[in-house]
């Protein structure tokens, strides 16, 4: 790959004495959807959270190796944690709206990334809510608590909030697993629209979802990357025995 957005080299990660990620080497392409699949507990989420250094907040985490975003080291640096996290936003398994109004949830991202003028906030918030296809549903109730939205709407709100800090990368950890089918579809559609401008790395348990939206697929098993390739090739012509077994549903 000639221009990888995220480059992971020799990444090993231990939590206390458990070896969670083992010698990961990956080059994740820019402005594409890369989907990580694999059975539960294989390290998918940990890998995702290592990219934006959320693993820093866990007790007993030790890592070695390197991760670069646009050629800049992000794993072995003490500085710029805020910038790294703003560059690679996380959409979690279930929505966690902030305890404030709908408007302020989106404005929060803008505020902490330094845009504080009130007059400038409103059009930006509207733009972001439109990007997340939420504007039409909430435009008359922007001051209502975020908790008053449905789970599906909350997840789109979290997406809008995440986009507010101007990320390059969207890390999504099973973002549709708590949602109803329609909301899931909305999120998938959004990802496909956004993939032109954003590098999306998504963990999923749903093979059909991976087939629908993936440009590239990573298959992980017990902390190792077993196979990585373009979606077309991955699904039509898997090379590794374990991948074949997983795709045919032998283990889950």
């Amino acid at each position, binding site marked *: 790959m000639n221009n990888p957005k995220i480059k992971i080299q020799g990444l090993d990660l231990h939590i206390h004495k458990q070896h969670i990620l083992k010698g990961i080497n990956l080059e994740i392409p820019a402005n594409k959807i890369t989907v990580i699949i694999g059975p539960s507990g294989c390290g998918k989420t940990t890998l995702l959270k290592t990219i934006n250094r959320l693993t*820093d907040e866990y*007790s007993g985490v030790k890592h070695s190796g390197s991760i670069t975003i646009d050629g800049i080291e992000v794993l072995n640096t003490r500085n710029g944690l805020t910038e790294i*996290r703003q560059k690679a936003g996380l959409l979690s398994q279930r929505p*966690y709206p*902030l305890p404030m109004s709908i408007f302020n949830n989106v404005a929060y991202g803008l505020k*902490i990334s330094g845009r504080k003028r009130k007059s400038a906030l409103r059009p930006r918030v509207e733009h972001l809510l439109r990007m997340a296809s939420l504007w039409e549903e909430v435009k008359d109730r922007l001051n209502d608590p975020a908790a008053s939205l449905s789970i599906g709407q909350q997840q789109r709100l979290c997406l809008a909030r995440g986009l*507010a*800090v101007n990320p390059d990368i969207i890390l999504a950890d099973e973002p549709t697993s708590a949602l109803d089918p329609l909301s899931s579809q909305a999120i998938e559609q959004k990802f496909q629209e956004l993939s032109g401008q954003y590098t999306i790395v998504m963990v999923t348990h749903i093979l059909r979802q991976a087939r629908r939206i993936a440009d590239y697929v990573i298959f992980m098993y017990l902390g190792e990357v077993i196979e990585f390739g373009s979606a077309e090739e991955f699904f039509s012509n898997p090379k590794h025995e374990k991948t074949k077994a997983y795709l045919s549903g032998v283990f889950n």
Partner: protein
Amino acid sequence: MKRVEEIFFRTLMYGAVLVITGLLFLIIYSIISKGASSLSWEMVSQTPRGGYYFGKEGGILNAIIGSLYLSAGATALAFFISLPVALGMNIYLAKYRRMVNGLRFILDLLWGVPSIVYGAFAFSIMIMVGARASLMAGIITVGVFIVPIMIRAMDEVFKTVPRGLTESALSLGATFTETSFGVLVRQCAPGVVTALLLGFGRGIGDAAAVLFTTGYTDYIPGSLSQPAATLPLAIFFQLGSPIEEVRERAFAAALLLTLIILLISVITRILSNRFNKNRINF
């Protein structure tokens, strides 16, 4: 067998509820029945005149004001210490779980130390530096003694915030401080208020820690360096009187103390419910 078990525990539960509420009402009944008749406008609007403690004219305005000054000061002092510590334990230090648990253990021990010990400790320091009983000394002593209570009360509330919420704020690039005040405190506002009330209640009701440190006076304190009277001590001194009328006044003072706590609880509850609007129920 299942039915017997069910009936047994239900009886136990109702019994417990009955005992607790019964006790509460008994206490309230006894202070009302013994004190209500002595409660008067004069009592809450005047300071003691000559011979007040022998049943003559005057009131306990000095103790009311003194108590409010003391507990407000101590609560404020303790709050400014406790909030950052409780937030730190749940954000900054969250990943050093052993250390935080050690801290919790120490705080629980401090919570259990009787207030007279804090009073005696503060008194010994005051002797060392040659300070006299004053409002300031009382505020610091009571403040220090309610700090562990407040920290642990807030800590228990912050602990309930799901990790995902803190993580989503951090993922936006929020700093620890922004996450603490923008997200944790907002989400936990009612719990923080409860912690504040708990501290205030302990502070205003405590007699032992203020006995040596704040002293007692018939005057309303004009500055932090003067001694101050407090309601619990006013109750204590009057209750020991051989004169019936004075003992009744002690109960009236107890009733007043209860009313003050009730009033402040209700007001802060109403205020905290306003903040509660945006809380997320996870």
